[in-house]
């Protein structure tokens, strides 16, 4: 992240800024504007989710039984822990403790890989059960206790779209954290002299956590919408 236009000693302060305060505040607020766009990005998906859920409560309740709340729960705890590690990594960056940062970033990466691993297990199980929407959608009908399979398919459509996009964000997070870790490892001034780059990556990672905080209860922990036994879908 160094600016080529001027000498080495100035590669922390970019030429368009007057001082570090201005630069740092711009970076932090800039990251937040990016996160605002991300909020809107996922917001639309949550909106779509809420319509269909409200409409097809019973079918979706039956469909959600295919998801394992235990696996999702492990992932939730996992992301929470990684978020904590990330926050402390930023603290270590403020303290300019290179090893501290590296260890915590390594922990975050490990958590991210575990997350993706569990996601892989979940996805491949869904795929093996023919729950991926589209031409191959051929679920075991008995699993859904008479739910309208169209709506079940809609459920899995949104499930794959939303958790998939979240997964993509985790992947991007891995790349970014990896790059940041490399910089710390090599002791690049741009990260060691100033904690802001680490903070920016941290902000992104926390956002990824926040999305999962909503995804988990909405997909994995649905309450039963109908009284007593099963209930008719409409």
């Amino acid at each position, binding site marked *: 992240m160094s600016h080529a236009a001027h000498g080495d000693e100035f590669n922390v302060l970019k030429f368009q800024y007057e001082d570090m305060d201005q630069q740092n505040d711009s970076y932090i607020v800039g990251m937040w504007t990016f996160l605002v766009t*991300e909020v809107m990005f996922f917001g639309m998906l949550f909106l779509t989710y809420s*319509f269909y859920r409200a409409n097809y409560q019973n079918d979706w309740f039956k469909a959600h039984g295919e998801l394992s709340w235990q696996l999702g729960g492990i992932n939730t705890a996992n992301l929470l822990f990684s978020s904590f590690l990330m926050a402390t990594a930023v603290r270590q960056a403020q303290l300019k403790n290179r090893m501290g940062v590296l260890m915590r970033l390594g922990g975050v990466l490990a958590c991210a890989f575990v997350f993706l691993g569990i996601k892989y297990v979940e996805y491949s199980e869904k795929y093996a059960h023919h729950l991926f929407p589209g031409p191959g959608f051929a679920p075991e009908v008995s699993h859904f206790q008479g739910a309208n399979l169209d709506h079940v398919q809609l459920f899995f459509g949104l499930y794959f779209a939303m958790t998939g996009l979240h997964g993509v964000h985790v992947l991007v997070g891995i790349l970014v954290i990896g790059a940041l870790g490399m910089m710390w490892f090599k002791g690049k001034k741009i990260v060691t002299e100033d904690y802001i780059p680490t903070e920016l990556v941290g902000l992104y990672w926390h956002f990824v956590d926040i999305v999962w905080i909503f995804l988990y*209860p909405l997909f994995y922990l649905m309450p039963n919408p109908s009284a007593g036994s099963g209930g008719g879908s*409409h």
Partner: protein
Amino acid sequence: MAKSPLAAVHDDHGGHHIHANSMYVKTAGILAVFMVLTIAAAQIDIGHILTKPLGLSHQVGYWVNNVIAVGIAGVKTYIVVMYFMHVKWASSLGKLFALMGFFFIPVLFSVWTDFYFRQHEPVAHWYNNDYVESATPRIIGSTDGAKINPGEEGTQNRIPKSVW
């Protein structure tokens, strides 16, 4: 204004909050508690509990369940944003932009009013000429709603089933 940018870093050093480790540990602890709460709350069918002793509709309990789930997620988000993401100590500009997205989500969700109103519109039912306040909550265009079998309603002679 001739100070070197490197000097600026050192000058600023004290300006940034370096929080105690315990703050992060506490925050993570609270988040973990909320996580357990979410899972626990989801295991309880509040609708089922409310229906029998209190005589409340099952739907009420269902919505209580939902509100708890989303509410806890909201609180967790607030905690993450404020403490992990340091918005509590951010400049007012930072606060503004951190909140902007969350402010615009309700604007986005105002699309819901359309779907809400559709239920309450005086729609003439398609196969008989009377107005019916549509009794079933057919909020969105569901194919179930569309595939009406006239035979059920005793108006079977009006429209041959075949076209539809």
